[in-house]
C-alpha cells in the first residue's frame, strides 16, 4: 500500500497536472485522468445549467397559476432540465468522470485500452452538448425528455435537433463503456483475478454492459423519431398505420436500463468509500459483485413497467411487474452488505463517508418507493404523478449526485493533490441532505394525493406542499453551491495531499497525489485482496491454498 511505498520513488516524474501544461496539450491529451477532469468540468457546467432550470421550475410552481413564466416557457424549461440532466449530466457523471479517472488506476493500468477513443468520446460529448443547447435557438423543445409520440412528431421547435443531440451523446456513452470493458478484461495488473477487482470496477463493468447493449437501441429509436418527423415514415403515427405505444417500447428498452447506468456507478462508489472509512474488509464481496451484474442484466427485462397504464396487454403488464420485483433483491443485498461492512468497523466520519451514509438513507427511500411503482395496482394510481417524479429524483438525482460527490471528495486529493476544508464540506453535505429531502418528500405526498407531473397550473389544495418543495430546492442549491465552492477553494492552495490520505488499500493510493502521467512509477502487482485491512495482510495465493 502506499504508506509502505518508498517516498523517493514517487517523484522521479512530474505529475500529470504539471507535465505538458497549456490548453492545446489538454485538448489533445489521451491521458484518462485529464479526460476525466475535462469531463468533470463539462458535466459540472451542465449540472449548474440544469440545476438553475430546476430552481426556475420550482419557483414557477410556488403558486397555482402563473408565477414567473408562461406555460410554453415552463414546458420548455422542464424538457430542457430533463434532457440536460439525463443525457448530459447523470449518464456521463460517474462513469465518465470518476470511471475515467479512477478505473485504470484501480486496475493498476497505465491508461484505458483505447485512449484515443476515450478522447473522441469527450469530443462527441461536446458536440452533442452543443447540439442540445442549440435547440434554444430553434425555439426550444416542449416534449418532455421522454419524447413520446405522437406529441413529439407533431409539435414544433427543435425536437429533431434535441433528438439528434441525444443520439450523438449516445455514442459518447458507448465509447466509454466499450473502453471500460476492454480495459477490465485486458489491462488488469499482474496477479489481479476477477475476484481481486475492486468493486468499483465491477460496478463500472456492469454499467458498461448496459451502455453497450442498450444505447444503440436508443440511437435507432431516436433516428426513427427524426425520420417520422421528416418523412412521416408511419411507424409511430397512428394516422399512418403506426403504433404510438411502440415508441414507448423502443424508448424504454434503452431508458430503463439507462437508470441502472445512473445507479450502478453510484453503488460502485459506495463499495469503495464504505470499506475505506470503516477500515474493514467489504462484507460479501461476491454478493456485491454479482448483484451489480444481475442488476445490469435484469435491467433489460423490465422496461415495460413504465407502461402499465399505456395500453399494454394485461399479460405483458403482469410479466414485467413480476420481473421488476427481482431487481429489488440485488439492491437490498447491496444495502445490507454495506451496513454489514460498517458493522464492527472503525468508522471515520470524513466527508466521503458522510456522503456515503447520506446515500444509504436516500437510496433506501428511493429504492423502497420503487415497490409502489413496480406493483401493478398501486402503479396505476401513482403513474405520471409527482410520486414518480420524486421517486426517480431519489434514485437518479439524489443517489447519483450524492455518490458523485462522495467519489469526488474521496478522490479529490488524487485528482488535484489537495485537501479541501473539512468543516465546510461537512456543512455542505448536511445541507444537501436536508435540502434534498425537503424538496422531494413533499412530492411523494403530493403525488399519492393525485398531483400529476408536468403540470403548469395546479389545484390550490397542493400549494402548501409545492411551497415546501420550493423552499427545499433553495436549501439544496445552497448545499451544492457550498460543496462546489469548497472544492474549488482547495485549488488555490499548494498541493498538500499525501499519496494515501485515507489509508485505502486499492492501487490508486500507491500512485502519487496527483499521479504521474503514466500513473505508476512501477507497474503494481496484485498480491493482496483490495479490501484486506488486517494488520498483517495475507496474500491471495496463500488464502486460496488454505481454503482448499
Amino acid at each position, binding site marked *: 500500500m502506499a504508506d509502505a511505498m518508498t517516498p523517493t520513488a514517487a517523484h522521479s516524474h512530474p505529475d500529470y497536472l504539471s507535465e505538458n501544461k497549456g490548453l492545446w496539450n489538454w485538448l489533445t491529451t489521451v491521458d484518462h485522468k485529464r479526460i476525466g477532469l475535462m469531463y468533470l468540468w463539462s458535466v459540472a457546467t451542465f449540472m449548474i445549467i440544469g440545476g438553475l432550470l430546476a430552481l426556475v421550475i420550482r419557483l414557477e410552481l410556488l403558486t397555482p397559476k402563473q408565477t414567473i413564466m408562461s406555460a410554453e416557457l415552463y414546458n420548455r424549461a422542464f424538457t430542457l432540465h430533463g434532457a440536460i440532466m439525463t443525457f448530459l449530466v447523470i449518464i456521463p457523471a460517474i462513469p465518465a468522470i470518476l470511471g475515467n479517472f479512477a478505473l485504470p488506476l484501480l486496475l493498476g493500468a497505465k491508461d484505458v485500452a483505447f485512449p484515443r477513443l476515450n478522447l473522441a468520446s469527450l469530443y462527441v460529448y461536446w458536440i452533442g452538448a452543443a447540439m442540445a443547447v442549440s435547440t434554444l435557438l430553434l425555439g426550444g423543445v416542449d416534449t418532455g425528455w421522454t419524447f413520446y409520440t405522437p406529441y413529439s412528431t407533431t*409539435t414544433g421547435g427543435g425536437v429533431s435537433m434535441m433528438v439528434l443531440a441525444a443520439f450523438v451523446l449516445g455514442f459518447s456513452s458507448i465509447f466509454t463503456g466499450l473502453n471500460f470493458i476492454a480495459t477490465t478484461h485486458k489491462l488488469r495488473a499482474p496477479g489481479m483475478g476477477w475476484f481481486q477487482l475492486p468493486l468499483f470496477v465491477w460496478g463500472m463493468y456492469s454499467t458498461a454492459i448496459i451502455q453497450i447493449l442498450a444505447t444503440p437501441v436508443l440511437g435507432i429509436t431516436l433516428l426513427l423519431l427524426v425520420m417520422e418527423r421528416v418523412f412521416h415514415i408511419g411507424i409511430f403515427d397512428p394516422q399512418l398505420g403506426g403504433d404510438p405505444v411502440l415508441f414507448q417500447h423502443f424508448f424504454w428498452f434503452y431508458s430503463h436500463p439507462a437508470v441502472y447506468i445512473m445507479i450502478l456507478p453510484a453503488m460502485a462508489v459506495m463499495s469503495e468509500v464504505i470499506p475505506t472509512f470503516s477500515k474493514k474488509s467489504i462484507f460479501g464481496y461476491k454478493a456485491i459483485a454479482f448483484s451489480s451484474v444481475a442488476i445490469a442484466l435484469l435491467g433489460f427485462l423490465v422496461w415495460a413497467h413504465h407502461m402499465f397504464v399505456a395500453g399494454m396487454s394485461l399479460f405483458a403488464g403482469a410479466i414485467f411487474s413480476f420481473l421488476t420485483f427481482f431487481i429489488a433483491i440485488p439492491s437490498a443485498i447491496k444495502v445490507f452488505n454495506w451496513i454489514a461492512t460498517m458493522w464492527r468497523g*472503525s468508522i471515520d466520519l470524513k466527508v466521503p463517508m458522510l456522503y456515503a451514509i447520506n446515500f444509504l438513507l436516500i437510496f433506501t427511500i428511493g429504492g423502497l418507493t420503487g415497490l409502489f411503482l413496480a406493483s401493478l395496482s398501486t402503479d*396505476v394510481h401513482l403513474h405520471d404523478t409527482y410520486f414518480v417524479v420524486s421517486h426517480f429524483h431519489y434514485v437518479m438525482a439524489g443517489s447519483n449526485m450524492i455518490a458523485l460527490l462522495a467519489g469526488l471528495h474521496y478522490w479529490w486529493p488524487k485528482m488535484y493533490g489537495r485537501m479541501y476544508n473539512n468543516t465546510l464540506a461537512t456543512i455542505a453535505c448536511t445541507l444537501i441532505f436536508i435540502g434534498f429531502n425537503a424538496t422531494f418528500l413533499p412530492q411523494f405526498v403530493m403525488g399519492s394525493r393525485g398531483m400529476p407531473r408536468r*403540470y403548469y397550473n395546479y389545484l390550490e389544495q397542493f400549494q402548501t406542499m409545492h411551497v415546501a418543495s420550493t423552499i427545499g430546492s433553495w436549501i439544496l442549491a445552497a448545499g451544492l453551491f457550498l460543496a462546489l465552492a469548497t472544492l474549488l477553494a482547495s485549488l488555490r492552495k499548494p498541493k498538500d495531499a499525501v499519496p494515501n490520505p485515507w489509508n485505502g488499500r486499492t492501487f490508486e493510493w500507491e500512485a502519487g497525489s496527483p499521479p504521474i502521467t503514466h500513473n505508476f512509477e512501477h507497474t503494481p502487482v496484485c498480491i493482496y485482496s483490495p479490501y484486506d*485491512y488486517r494488520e498483517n495482510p495475507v496474500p491471495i495465493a496463500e488464502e486460496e491454498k488454505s481454503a482448499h
Partner: protein
Amino acid sequence: MNWFRDFLLPKSAASNTGDVDGLFMFISWLTVFFFFFNGGLIWYAVRKWRRRSNNDITPHITHDTKLEVIWSVIPLIVVMFIFFWGFRGYVRAWVVPNDALEIVVTGKKWVWEFEYPDGSRSLNDLHVPLNKPVKLVMHSEDVIHSFFVPAFRIKRDVIPGRYTELWFTATEPGIHQVYCTEYCGRGHSDMLARIFADTPEQYEVFLREGDEQVRKMPLKELGKLVYENKGCATCHSIDGTRGQGPSFKGIYGHELKDAAGKTHTVDANYIRDSILNPQAVVVAGYEPIMPTFQGLLREREILGMIEYIKSLQ
C-alpha cells in the same frame, strides 16, 4: 393509523379502492419501517464503532453465507407477496362487469368529451349513477392523453388510433376530479374534468333534463346540439339541399303535403309529432324511413329542436 392513510391518499370514492389502498399502506409502512431500520443500524454502528485511533484493529469478516441468504430470501418473499397483491388488484381493475354503463370518452387538446349511450354529449363534465359500474371506452383525436381519477385510483392512457377501456363503480356522491396525466402540450395542466357521482334522484334529474351545461343552454343552441349529435344531420340538411328527408331550411311556418295529398302546417306541434311518431305523416316524395325518437330525446331537447328549426329561415 387512519390518519396516515388520510394524509397520503385522497378520499376513496369507488368500490375497488380498498384493495389498492391496503397495498399502498402496506408498502408505505414497509418503507417507513426499513428506513428507520437501516437508519437505526447505521446510527448504532456509527455511535458504537466510531474510529478512535488510526491504529484501530477491525475483525476480518469477508462474508457470512447464512446471513446473506436470509437477507436475500426475506425480501424476495416480501416482494413476491406484494406482486401477487398488486396483480390481483390490477386484474380486478381490468375485467369490466358485463352490465356496465358504457360512456365513450374522447380526449383532444385540451378537453374531455363524453358521449352517453343515448348519443348525447358533454364536455368535461361526466354524470354517472352511484353504485353502478361504468365503463369508459376512450380514444384520442390527437396525441396521447391519460384519464386519471385519483379518488377512484384508476388511470389509463387515451391513445389515438385505438380504444382503451377503464371502469369504476362510484360509491361516494359528489364531484370527483379528473386529470390528464400524459403530457400533451400547453394546455396539459388545464385538461381537467369532473365526474358527478349522482344519487338516484340527482341522476333522475340529469336523465330527464340533461346536465347543468345543457340546462343552462339557450333552447336554440340546445336544438343545434341535438341536430348535430343525434343523427338529424344525416338526412335533414339546413341549407335547403334535398337529403333522405326534407331540408329544415325555411320549413317552419310553411305548409307541406303528405303522400295522401293532405296539407299540414309546420308548427311546434307538427315538429313534436314528427319526432316522436314520424310514420304518422310522411312528406310527399320521401320514403317512410325515419325512426322514432320517443324516449331518446328529453322534453327540453324537443323544445330546443323546435326553436332551432324556427331559427332556420
